[in-house]
């Protein structure tokens, strides 16, 4: 069987392209069209992509990982139980937590702890979001939609507990989406200190 050879012609240039001038005229015409459209055209037809940054801002995408916030319970205390999952997961090791016990008369005493110090070095953070993934109780979130405000001092980038608690999410809420069923609540699953384990 004879081998079939299919000759594919090299794409050449047309005469108009070879003469050069018509193509140049075409290019000039195109550029002029754009120029007139963007300079003198009606505002709606203009195609300008420039954002005048400090005056106009582009909304970040919905799942943008912005600076962290700590969510609150309904009484305003941090939802965080100081389990150290986030600081363990953090590849940049930029979360510093000092866990502390609640007072003995607090119903939460003996069940969970709270962070007496919660510090994130936002300069060292790589915004990977692992801390958010690791948190077992939706206490840390990156849904603020804000990038770090610039500053001239490194100290300003050490966000402490109060700062992190004071930043709202993009929807304006401070509360956690995973509320703790406090002992004594109607919704409490039933295991509490009075009834025994």
């Amino acid at each position, binding site marked *: 069987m004879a081998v079939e050879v299919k000759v594919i012609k090299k794409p050449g240039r047309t005469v108009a392209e070879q003469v050069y001038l018509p193509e140049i005229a075409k290019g*000039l015409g195109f*550029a002029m069209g*754009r120029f007139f459209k963007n300079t003198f055209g009606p505002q709606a037809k203009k195609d*300008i992509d420039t954002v*005048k940054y400090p005056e106009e801002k582009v909304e970040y995408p919905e799942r943008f990982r912005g600076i962290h916030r700590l969510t609150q319970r309904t009484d305003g205390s941090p939802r965080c139980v100081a389990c150290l999952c986030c600081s363990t997961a953090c590849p940049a090791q930029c979360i510093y937590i000092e866990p502390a016990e609640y007072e003995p008369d607090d119903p939460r005493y003996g069940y969970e702890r709270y962070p007496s110090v919660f510090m994130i070095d936002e300069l060292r953070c790589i915004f990977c979001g692992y801390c958010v993934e690791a948190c077992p109780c939706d206490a840390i979130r990156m849904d603020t939609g804000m990038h770090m405000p610039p500053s001239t001092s490194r100290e300003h980038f050490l966000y402490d507990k109060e700062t992190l608690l004071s930043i709202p999410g993009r929807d304006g809420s401070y509360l956690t989406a995973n509320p703790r069923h406090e002992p004594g609540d109607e919704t409490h699953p039933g295991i509490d200190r009075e009834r025994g384990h």
Partner: protein
Amino acid sequence: MTTTFLVVSSLVKVLAILLITVGGFAPVLIWAERRQSAMIQDRLGPSRAAIVLPASAVSFIDRARLPLWRLAALTGIVAIVALVTLTFVAVKGSNPLPISTSSLTASLIAFGVASVVLRAGYGVHTMIVRNGGKIMLIGLLHPVADALKFIFKEDFVPPKADKLLFSAGPIIALIPAIAAFAVIPFASSLHWDYLNQVLPRTGELAGPVVPLQVASINVGILFIFAIASTGIIGAAISGYASDNKYSLLGGIRAASQMVSYEVVLGLTLVPAFMVYASLRLEDMTMWQHDHVWGIFVPPLTLAAVTFFVAAVAETKRVPFDLPEGESELVGGYLTEYSGMKFGMFFMGEFVEVVSLAALASVIFLGGWDVPFLYRSGFEFSLPFVAASYSVPVVHWLVVVIQFVVFLLKIIVLIWFQLMIRWSLPRFRYDQLMSLCWKGLLPISLLNILVVGAFILSGWLDGWVAFFEKLF
């Protein structure tokens, strides 16, 4: 005409030219070039340089807005009332009112102007407040910022450079570009004694005549060629004096490119001399004023195109910017220059763009000639019908209109050059040379023959007569 009058008028003309080119066109061009490229590429371009006002001034401006608007409205109403009354008087034919007609007219003009100015002030104030106390002027402050930067930058001279030639380079490059304007007529001549009168369409007039051109010399266009070739020396010298191989190569490239295109530039204009039968730019404009714009005479159309290409190559700008090239020559002969010396090269380049536009419009687009505008005013005559219509215009206004139209022609040509600069791909050096020697040179030589035949066969006169019958 006294000597003092001559000296003063010449000085005024020189100053005006410096103001227009170095003070006006060059800085605006720096902005326009960036802005235009941005518009082609869907960007905004330089628009952010701003003078930031202090907060107290901003709050004052904000508070002044409402009174300004009210005053504008008030003066506007008064002007409208005056206008209505005037119309009433005009319709009635007599003035029964206690106010005289002339004071009515005066108040109409005064209040109308005041209203417009106040309304504009309100607009400016609103804009400033909306921009947060920044005056931005659509980016026109960028050249100012550039100039400040140039002035305060370190003026570096390479240690082994030839100090004198290194400093002379930018001057030699800038001065000829400006000097070319000396022979360009900006408007028809000014009859000093008849400023407020309507002149007759033709005929000699007594009294001092001020030609609106710095130097009216016989060699005219040859002077421009001579001056333009001096620019080559600027580029070559600065390349040589920089003590840098890239600079030297860039300087040599610039020199050879400019020398080659100088030849073509001269030859493309020979047909123009033949048709206009003069080397003086004012005579060329006059011929076009009397007959028809050069670009509409068939063989000159070709001359205009070739001239334009050669002249763009002569300014060494994209697509012919071979003397520079980041990948091969760094900045070419500009490599070692910084600060205001670089600024002078930059300026020289832009002034060259302006002078090229001026030259092209004088030689091919009629210079200051405005269609249907004669020394006596506008005169329209319809073709093939004996009807005509004329609007007499006073002499000074005629000159001003011619001047403004000339500037407009320059602006359009500059715009076209910038368009070319941002659209066309760059040539290779051998392509540049073959375009010059194998393309433009034979074409322009042939064109000289064609124009010669055109004139000798009498077709030129026929063509001109045909055009004159048309208008």
